[in-house]
């Protein structure tokens, strides 16, 4: 019978944990704030609540004496939250860099089935057909606003490791590109001159690869090119070097062909007309997408992998941290066994004891979460890294530790604290008073 009761109690606690986790994951921040407020009110206004507060105060006052074991909870949870937030910041930063490159006012056209610009090829005639299609915005002279582009890849040494080459994308662009991609701003030097072997370099590329300072010359396809300016755009384009389409095409012997055409649409709504007219044109076999769709899609695979890795690593570390917290808190209630038993002997009920132990654990967990998330925010927010993107070339991106991510980290920390505190708290409230008093 006793066994059954014990088993039933264990099952009940497990159910509580599971229910808590489900609710906790689903709850938005407003919900959690509401819970915190209700809890604070309960503590301040009811008798039981005030008792709880007294017991918690005693517990917190003794934390200083148990600094070593309390720091286990804090550091353990800081580690979990730190690694989790860093991995997610990497994934988010990469996705954002690509997503912000595109918008719904411009569309990109590639040869059918090409997936990425690097694989595509469009001859002069097809490119002209695309530019003249309905839905493309015209400038004051009545010419369509469009840029026929070419992406080639050059080997350039990396700053951090000059011995090994990296694939750096070089984009040939048309004159219209400045109005088409208005996020691009020259911050040093000047724009390239069409027809000359001049390049401008994105801020990200300049930061990652050697020899790209303004005024320097680099060798591409056996010819010497001069870097005449630096641009910022805060998106994936910053990983690139830009030159004039014709010059790049002649250097790489591409004749008059291009790889993609990017056009300005009359309005986002004009996209359907534009797409339909190209799909209906028997001279063409092309894939049409808004630039938003095109660039967002490129981040999908890697973002998913990074998220999965981050969460897997986070869960395994969290399991380790939960057991660390359990150890600490069991030790803590053991050290305070006489004190807790005395409280119960003089009439304190189970609830204040349970809640105070849990509150203490969760406060330690909160501290750990804040430390972990804070360190990652200080060290990694804006940290620049690069990887191989869709065009077989380097994409430079920045880690982005957003407020939402910090919140996720704190939520994890509190969840670990909850589980780590629940079992010791229940134990503290269930040990028979007489046993506890006699033991010491």
């Amino acid at each position: 019978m006793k066994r059954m009761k014990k088993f039933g109690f264990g099952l009940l606690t497990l159910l509580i944990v599971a229910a808590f986790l489900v609710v906790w994951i689903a709850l938005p921040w407003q919900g959690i704030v509401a819970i915190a407020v209700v809890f604070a009110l309960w503590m301040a206004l009811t008798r039981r609540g005030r008792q709880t507060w007294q017991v918690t105060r005693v517990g917190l006052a003794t934390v200083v004496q148990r600094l070593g074991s309390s720091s286990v909870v804090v550091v353990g949870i800081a580690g979990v939250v730190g690694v989790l937030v860093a991995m997610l910041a990497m994934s988010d930063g990469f996705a954002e860099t690509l997503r912000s490159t595109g918008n719904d006012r411009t569309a990109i056209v590639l040869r059918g089935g090409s997936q990425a610009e690097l694989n595509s090829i469009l001859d002069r005639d097809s490119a002209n057909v695309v530019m003249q299609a309905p839905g493309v915005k015209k400038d004051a002279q009545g010419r369509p606003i469009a840029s026929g582009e070419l992406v080639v890849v050059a080997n350039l040494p990396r700053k951090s490791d000059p011995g090994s080459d990296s694939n750096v994308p070089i984009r040939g662009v048309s004159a219209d590109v400045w109005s088409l991609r208005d996020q691009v701003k020259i911050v040093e030097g000047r724009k390239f001159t069409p027809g000359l072997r001049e390049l401008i370099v994105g801020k990200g590329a300049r930061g990652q690869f050697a020899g790209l300072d303004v005024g320097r010359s680099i060798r591409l396809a056996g010819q010497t090119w001069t870097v005449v300016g630096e641009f910022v755009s805060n998106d994936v384009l910053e990983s690139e070097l830009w030159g004039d389409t014709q010059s790049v095409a002649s250097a790489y012997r591409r004749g008059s062909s291009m790889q993609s055409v990017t056009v300005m649409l009359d309005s986002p709504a004009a996209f359907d007309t534009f797409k339909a007219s190209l799909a209906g044109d028997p001279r063409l076999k092309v894939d049409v997408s808004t630039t938003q769709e095109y660039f967002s899609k490129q981040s999908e695979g890697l973002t998913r992998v990074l998220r999965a890795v981050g969460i897997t690593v986070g869960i395994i570390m969290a399991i380790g941290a939960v057991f660390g917290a359990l150890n600490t808190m069991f030790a803590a209630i053991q050290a305070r066994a006489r004190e807790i038993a005395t409280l119960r002997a003089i009439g304190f009920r189970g609830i204040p004891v349970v809640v105070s132990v849990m509150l203490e654990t969760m406060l330690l967990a909160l501290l750990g979460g804040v430390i972990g998330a804070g360190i990652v925010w200080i060290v990694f927010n804006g940290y620049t890294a690069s990887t191989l993107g869709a065009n077989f070339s380097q994409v430079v991106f920045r880690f982005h530790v957003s407020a939402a991510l910090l919140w996720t980290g704190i939520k994890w920390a509190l969840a670990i604290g909850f589980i780590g505190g629940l079992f010791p708290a229940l134990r503290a409230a269930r040990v028979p008073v007489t046993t506890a008093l006699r033991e010491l």
Partner: protein
Amino acid sequence: MKYMHLIWAALFRRKTRTFFTLVSILAAFLLFGMLDATRAAFASGDSVVGVDRLITTSKYSIIQSLPASLSTRIQAIPGVKAVAAANWFGGIYQDPKNFVLSFAVSENYLDIYREIELPADQRKVYENTRTGAVVGEALAKRFGWKLGDKVPLQSTIFPQRNGDKTWPFDIVGIYRPAKGAANGTDQQFFFHHKYFEDANAFQSVGTTVGWYAVQLTSADKADSVARAIDALSANSDHETKTQTEQAFNASFAKQLGDIGLIVSAIMGAVFFTLILLTGNPMAQAVRERTHELAVLKTIGFSSHSVLGMVLAEGILLLVLGGVLGLALAGIVVPIVAKGSGGMLNLPPIGTQTWILGLVLMVVIGALVGALPALRAMRLNIVDALAGR
């Protein structure tokens, strides 16, 4: 060793605490096993078989091709045993998500890549089938291909003459990579360069080659031969860069991002936490046993054996948890690799990982045990027994 039962008894004096600590250690080493497998998967450039191979690519860019005429000139260089040519095909199967590592290769390519062990009869059929393709075992498994299947691959780059980008192939060979092959070798797809040239809408592929794989007569000639190959086209419009296959693969892996660095950073955080997580209960355990240790010393155990016993306890704790964790990783890693559908080629936990793991367990165990052990050694019997 004769104190083993004492150490064991001390370790499990408080079962719950030791169990909790063991779970933390287990989690840490499970993670270590999985992350080390990930690192190994990306650092797959270490094919033991390929030490005598060089890769010649365009100096300026991976996308620029080389003239086909270079082949005979490379062949003439002393120290070169054979030259094979290959081209990137960029194939996908049915859905853009199903990327296939596919290459159009010259006839002798399979001879140079000895780790591709194709049964002789299948090799014969391959040679006689224009649209024949040879695929790795894992790739065949991934898509359920069998010998004799007709498989359409869509190229993201090359259309056929009729403008269609879907190329039909016949699976005529399925190979199993030899021992020592680079990780991921069993995910590749090879077919005849001749078919690629003949059916291709881009006529230029007949006179160009993506890259050359050069087999040397002996591995120690790598440097001189590489220089000689690059000298062939120096100052031309198609300058080459020749490097060992290992260097080529390593530089490619590096471009994906410094996986090694990320893994080390995570592991650093994990093990730092672990030292604290185990160090604290350990210290507590020894503190609780002050009396017992004093008794041990009283009945004649030397200070050094007490030190040794507490140190051994820490190491035993770490090794117990660590071995369980790594063993669990050994079970989980293949499941994850299988579940990713060929996306992640995680190699099984190897001897190297085990050795590194065991070293880490002993070092961390010793670190964790050190402070309590010193305390136990310096214990003054009279004070301890008096409870001071």
